[in-house]
């Protein structure tokens, strides 16, 4: 059986359920030498802010058991440069682009969405209310249901694009935040962002990152991410996109069984530029072997 790997995230149809996670895939064009990224479900851009940001002082990353900490500090070229310098090339290549946005106030979130709404070639906006690595405006929005809802509806109001909200694992009850965002109009929920961790150098007695704490990503995080996707998927009707430690097709399938409609591949891109491509292929292989449709996987372990 030849299987059709496409999935629908709300009104949006993706070629397959494998996306690349914000901050781990640059602006997509870096992958030009490796493969045709228009074959992916979508790419999520590095988090875009209204003004360019240079990011945190180094060291910005360190490795931990089966994972890594990062405190990039949302270094990005700014929404304007993205729209003029990157988006046209992506559009030309027919890439499905999800613009990930970040701001420190509700007004700025709306301004970002308004700016992106003017552009052709953006498939959805992913609202990052869960960045742990900035002084201001990262986590507050993500751990309080009222705030999360306020950001969601402010963004919804100013754009016709589908609005995805990226949830923080640091909210005590992620399902409560998810429901608040859904009620505020979110078209999909993405879970999870990184969890803050700390690593200390026992030689120098100093934190390994200049920002001290950084977000934990990678396989270490996966069981927590799967549990949260499962909780969110039970709590809402809109699609859930699973993120956290996906490195192979089996990981992606695990997320889908837990209720995810699609997954994002993050840190695994650092190990292998073709990771997302191979995972998408692996899902097709798995489904063809079992003669099932990938959509049948979604939520099958929800019971």
């Amino acid at each position: 059986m030849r299987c059709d790997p496409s999935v629908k995230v709300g009104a949006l149809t993706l070629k397959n359920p494998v996306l690349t996670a914000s901050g781990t895939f640059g602006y997509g064009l870096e992958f030009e030498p490796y493969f045709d990224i228009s074959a992916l479900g979508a790419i999520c851009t590095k988090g875009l802010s209204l003004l360019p940001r240079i990011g945190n002082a180094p060291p910005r990353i360190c490795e931990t058991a089966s994972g890594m900490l990062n405190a990039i500090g949302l270094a990005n070229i700014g929404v304007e440069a993205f729209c003029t310098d990157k988006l046209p090339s992506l559009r030309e290549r027919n890439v499905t682009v999800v613009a990930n946005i970040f701001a420190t106030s509700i007004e700025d979130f709306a301004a970002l969405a308004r700016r992106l709404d003017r552009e052709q070639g953006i498939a959805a906006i992913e609202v990052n209310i869960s960045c742990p690595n900035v002084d201001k405006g990262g986590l507050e929005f993500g751990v309080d249901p009222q705030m999360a809802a306020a950001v969601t509806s402010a963004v919804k109001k100013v754009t016709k694009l589908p609005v995805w909200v990226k949830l923080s694992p640091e909210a005590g009850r992620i399902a409560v935040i998810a429901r608040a965002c859904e009620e505020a109009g979110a078209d999909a929920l993405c879970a999870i962002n990184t969890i803050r961790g700390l690593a200390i150098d026992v030689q120098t007695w100093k934190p390994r990152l200049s920002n001290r704490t950084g977000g934990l990503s990678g396989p270490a995080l996966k069981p927590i991410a799967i549990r949260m996707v499962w909780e969110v998927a039970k709590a809402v009707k809109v699609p859930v996109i699973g993120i956290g430690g996906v490195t192979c097709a089996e990981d992606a399938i695990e997320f889908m069984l837990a209720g995810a409609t699609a997954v994002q591949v993050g840190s695994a891109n650092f190990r292998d530029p073709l990771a997302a491509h191979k995972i998408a292929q692996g899902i097709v292989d798995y489904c063809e072997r079992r003669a099932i449709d990938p959509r049948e996987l979604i939520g099958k372990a929800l019971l």
Partner: protein
Amino acid sequence: MEPMHCGKPRPRQVVVPLLRRDSIGASHHVLTFDCEQPLEAAPGQFAMVRGAQWGESPFLPRPMSILTAGRRPSILVKVVGEGTRRLASSEPGELFTVHAPLGVGWAPCPEDRVPVLVAGGVGVCPLVFLARGLTEQGRRAIALYGGRSAGDLPLDDELAEVTDLRIATEDGSLGQLGRVTVLLESAIEETKGRLKVYACGPRAMMARVVEMCRAADAPCEVSLETIMGCGYGVCLGCAVPKVGGGYLYACSEGPCVDGHAIAWES
């Protein structure tokens, strides 16, 4: 020397077996891989290397300067932590993912300047590769190589073959007593400041070399050894502070960069 910045060969990630491991003392190991398609790389470029069977931990690949390119590309590994320990203890036949060539290699040396290579420890790799390239072009570099003691100078023979090599050790066990910067002082004098320095080694060494070059009004390129997540510009983990503020990314704008552009003090 051909322009190395443009017409860069396309990076690829391949899974290849280790062909041989040559250990130099207890902590330096040359690993040679067996590639079906030759690895094209310019001096100063690097590879991200990881054992294909490492499982999930260590999680990330490790950046390693390319020592030689071609069908049997090699790297020189110094053991400093878990990743390099695993590399160093691997056996021929083991599979590795090698992602290369990455980054920007050394810029050409102006015809009217003497290329002076300043190496510290494993920083020697990209300089041996550079020296070989220069030799092919009929140019001979001066190489200054320093370390704590004689055991910290892997590949000194290889360097001697293709350069006018001068050695300094802090304990005087080989070459001149003292740091490599003493040798640089003489080289600056000897070339009457008509030199271009290429440096790779510990951060403190490179900072001092750049300072001396600034005083001598000489160009100085360095190869940065920062922590890297991806090696190809997508994680933004390899930021290095620039003079005048902001950061450059060592993996995509470097590792070989103008030493005078780096804010060494920060």
